[in-house]
């Protein structure tokens, strides 16, 4: 089978290799196959696919953790809205 990647996709794979997140194109393909959605026949579904929702929902649901993650979002969105030191003139 021949797979043709778009320039962006090829760049993304090369960048992942350069960054050390994957070792090779071969490893990339193995990883891609491992993450195929269920129902493809010969490939097993990811082992935790059914429980990902349960694992994440309410993970930070205690009052302390909820306040914490609210603060994290607040910090993030303050940073997003912080204007550049020197705004460009449009």
């Amino acid at each position, binding site marked *: 089978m021949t797979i043709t990647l778009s320039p962006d996709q090829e760049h993304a794979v090369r960048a992942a290799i350069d960054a050390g997140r994957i070792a090779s194109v071969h490893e990339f393909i193995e990883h891609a196959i491992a993450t195929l959605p269920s129902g493809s026949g010969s490939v097993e579904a990811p082992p935790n696919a059914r429980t990902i929702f349960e694992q994440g*929902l309410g993970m930070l649901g205690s009052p302390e953790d909820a306040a914490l993650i609210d603060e994290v979002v607040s910090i993030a969105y303050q940073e997003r809205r912080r204007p550049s030191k020197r705004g460009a003139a*449009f």
Partner: protein
Amino acid sequence: MADKVILDTDILSEYFKGYNANVAARAAAYVTERGVFAFTSVTVFEIVYGLQVKGASSQLAKVLAWLDQNEEITPVASDYRNAATIKVAAGRQGSVVELPDCLIAAIAVRLERPLVTGNTADFQAIQRTGVKLIIENWRDEQT
């Protein structure tokens, strides 16, 4: 089948809290169809940064373990270029949008995925530049 979407930081945090029934219901419906959630590396940065600033190492470990099971979308070179274009276009319309929002929008547009966010005002400013950005807010009841 529902379109693949990208979750923004505020919606992901709402899901982690589990308090909002609309977010929980829509997340459940989505993951049943799609298997995993997707978010950008911008969101991962924001969560890791915030939890580290707060010294919340145990919460960070839990969140990272969950994030690793889902889809993190890393920006590519063209996303940065398109983010710059978005920022300039928004600025010419009088809206100040910074790199994180521009980058998230550029990724969503490239992948043709709706962005799920409660931060609608900032992303509507980006929509007004003419980019094909679709916004969903899972805090709203599904119609």
